[in-house]
């Protein structure tokens, strides 16, 4: 088993990056690897409750989040600094995520076999 860390750093609809990383996470989960899924920078917007991209003809990127645990992705983290820098708070989020700091993320990266960032 390998430790794979995913840094979700992009907002949800401006590009396909959020969805592309989510698909990587779910694929790795099927192979039962150890996964650390970290939302930071604009990636914290992926976690916001109340997203409604119907008028963009896009799928709701956050719809898959509640199912992450079913897929065995239970290590989901949120960079608190990124959230606060954007004027957001944890009670606006769709799913609970363990808050972490840049120092925590550095440690998780150091303990990973591979790291992917989108």
């Amino acid at each position: 088993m390998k430790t794979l860390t995913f840094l979700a750093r992009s907002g949800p609809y401006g590009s396909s990056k959020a969805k592309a990383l989510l698909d990587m996470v779910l694929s790795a989960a099927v192979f039962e690897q150890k996964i650390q899924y970290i939302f930071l920078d604009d990636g914290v917007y992926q976690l916001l409750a109340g997203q409604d991209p119907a008028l963009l003809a896009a799928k709701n990127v956050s719809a898959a989040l509640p199912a992450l645990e079913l897929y065995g992705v239970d290590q989901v983290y949120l960079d608190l600094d990124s959230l606060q820098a954007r004027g957001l708070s944890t009670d606006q989020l769709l799913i609970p995520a363990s808050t972490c700091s840049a120092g925590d993320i550095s440690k998780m990266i150091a303990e990973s076999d591979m790291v992917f960032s989108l």
Partner: protein
Amino acid sequence: MIISLVIHGAPGTTQGAQTALTFCRAALAADHRIYRVFFYEDGVHNANALSVWPQDEYDLNAAWATLVREHELDAVVCVASALRRGVLNAEEASRYEKTGVSVDPAFDISGLGQWVDACLNSDRVVSFGV
């Protein structure tokens, strides 16, 4: 008013092509005239007829082709951008001995002169996906 659009982004990868489509529909609904839609750089992928979108996703390629046909829009794909991205019409596919035609026939393939012409003949030119 007479409005032209320049689209730089591929469908799906960035949001610009979708924003442009919505803008184009709104401009038509407000009875403005769309002089030309010019697809440049990665924007030429909007004219790719080989794209296959998942059933549960919005097919932006089909949406553009439909809009162009319904409103008889002048939709031009930049030839220099298209060739290097493999967006080819029958003539080019044959000339370069390629295994397929990939541009939707609703779109014309032509040069940047068509973009200049759009600038000269439009009141406004709006760029998307830069």
